[in-house]
């Protein structure tokens, strides 16, 4: 219990700092914004209760919000991701696939599965986030473009981060 908690706190702080200090400063063009902090919600263990997922999603989203001065924006998107996570896992796996596995990570589930899992969640995350952002400044035309450009960037960055911080054992 102590180990899991410490690890999660470290992940929380690490991903938060990575997001606000590194990736918030990286913008390729006007529409690409990589989001790496979502990874925190994605790789929580399989047996995490749904309400815990949602609370965790809210916490990391809101932490990012505090630093970007956009209260509620990232939190809304991450809560949405946390809510959808069990459904996406259900759709993309069979019962037998996740038996004996602890968490939906690359090392346990394989890169191919993780790729599509992350892709689905990122699309929903980005859709809600950019829609909320645009909704308030009345520029809806940008949303689809932003999602289209940002999802691959986030996906790439997330997989990169996983390979840097969690080497795959062969």
């Amino acid at each position, binding site marked *: 219990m102590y180990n899991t908690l410490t690890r999660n706190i470290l992940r929380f702080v690490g991903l938060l700092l990575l997001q606000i*200090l590194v990736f918030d400063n990286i913008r390729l063009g006007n529409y690409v914004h990589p989001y790496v902090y979502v990874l925190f919600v994605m790789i929580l263990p399989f047996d995490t209760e*749904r*309400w815990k997922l949602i609370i965790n999603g809210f916490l990391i989203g809101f932490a990012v919000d*505090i630093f970007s*001065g*956009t*209260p*509620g924006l990232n939190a809304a998107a991450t809560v949405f991701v946390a*809510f959808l996570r069990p459904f996406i896992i259900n759709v993309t796996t069979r019962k037998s696939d996740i038996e004996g596995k602890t968490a939906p990570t690359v090392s346990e589930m394989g890169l191919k599965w993780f790729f599509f899992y992350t892709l689905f969640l990122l699309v929903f995350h980005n859709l809600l986030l950019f829609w909320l952002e645009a909704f308030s*400044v009345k520029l809806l035309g940008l949303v689809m473009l932003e999602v289209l450009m940002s999802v691959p960037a986030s996906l790439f960055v997330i997989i990169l981060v996983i390979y840097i911080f969690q080497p795959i054992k062969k």
Partner: protein
Amino acid sequence: MYNLFIFIKKYSAVILFILLELLCFLMVAYSLPYQNRKMVSVSNSIAGGIYKTTSNWNDYLHLKSENEKLAKQNALLMNMLGEDYSEDDTLITNGMYSFVPAHVIKNSIYELNNYMVIDKGRADGVEADMGVICAEGIVGIVVNVSNHYASVMSLLNSNTVVSARFVDNQYVANVLWDNQNYHFGVVKDIPSHLIINKGDTLVTSGFSNSYPPDIMVGTIEETEDNTNEMFSTAKLKFSTNFSTLRHVFIVKNNYQEEIDSLCITH
């Protein structure tokens, strides 16, 4: 009653989800028009400290170019001082503006409404509506102040309107942001009989109390051919490079209260 508990227990995740989403939506709805205010409250707390530390680290990487910029800034300020002293009627211009140097500790350039946070606040005499300039040109206007920080509405903001003057012919026009690229803005309300060329320079008109006159705004990048209308527009390249902004000066109009009192009474 028992059924209600069963129901709540069964759908606790869904209920929690809906409640939190509602909370988030409310926060978004209430915060975005006042995003600047949030920026300041943010910079007071832990976030301000962290951003300040990282900006300190970043400063080391840009020491050389920053030195050059500061040298330019010095020259500019010396010029202003010189002009003031050479004026006959010193009461009008001498000491009209004073400048508070500040660091940009957070800056956004890719949003639709960009703000920055600077490390000077009420304690340093900074107040809302003061202009902010740098060695290269104008930067923005202070919109909110806390004790040690202030948030600045950057030129890169859909609410920005700057009154600017063509150096060549003294005509005044309005400068807005084009909402797309941090290099370019739009010059509006140019009388269409005016012939403007690429490279024409615009400086602040001094009509607003925020900016002193003759601070660089930018140069014309592209002219549009719309001779049928009363006013024409043109594309402007900002002289300020917002992506490398570090040292800025807050412009304090020493006679602001006096000017304001005139405006109220008439």
